[in-house]
């Protein structure tokens, strides 16, 4: 999607263009397919107990879809929380701090959960 350079150059009061909006939609589109799979799978995995859940995550298709779901969902929720912070937190310092905290928290969660999937996948194959 392109906008003429003349109109976006200033970027307006928000300091950003349409990129945020488009990314929110693209991750949403991915989640339309991933979330139904995730709901169905997580219920089965939870009911299967520790061993059953391990076997479920260790399946390559499940591991891949799990990582895709995590990536899309975490990016989507980072964008969403960013807007909530920008809407409600007026004080510039607090707002900046919370925006950075939002990014840190989501990236930390992404790293920990994706590593968990990989660990289960690698140890099951060994």
């Amino acid at each position: 999607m392109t906008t003429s350079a003349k109109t976006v150059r200033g970027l307006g009061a928000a300091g950003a263009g349409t990129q945020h909006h488009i990314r929110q939609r693209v991750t949403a589109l991915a989640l339309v397919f991933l979330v139904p799979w995730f709901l169905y799978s997580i219920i089965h995995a939870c009911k299967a107990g520790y061993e059953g859940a391990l076997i479920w995550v260790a399946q390559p298709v499940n591991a891949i879809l799990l990582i895709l779901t995590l990536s899309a969902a975490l990016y989507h929720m980072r964008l969403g929380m960013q807007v909530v912070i920008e809407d409600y937190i007026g004080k510039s310092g607090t707002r900046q701090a919370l925006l950075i905290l939002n990014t840190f928290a989501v990236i930390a969660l992404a790293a920990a959960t994706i590593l968990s999937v990989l660990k289960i996948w690698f140890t099951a194959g060994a």
Partner: protein
Amino acid sequence: MAGPGQADPRPLSPHLQIWKWHWTMAGSIFHRVSGVGLYGGSFLIGAWLIALATGPEAYKFVEMIAFSLPGQLLLFLWSMAVLYHFANGLRHLIWDGPMVGFKPGVASLWSMFNFAFAIIGAAVIWSLASFF
């Protein structure tokens, strides 16, 4: 612009508390509320996955919390938030893509449908999950 200590005589724009609640407004507010709820929920789902990778003791601990009464209640609310945010998010995509569903009557009905979808859907999922 009003000077210091001098009240601005112009009327204020209506605030949330004097708005008459209607379906589309509730639909929009709950999209944000469910989104913030899911933000928190993803850290709990993450804890489940991290515990699974950590070992049987950690997993047992998370299972104990998840199967307790508050845990089950939280999971039920989580599933409702997922279904609501999913249905209403789909509607946002339809608004942005084919651009249909803006007529007041249709918009209100659609909001009602999304709430019903979340509540009935969560009930159906939980009863299916406990049977199979």
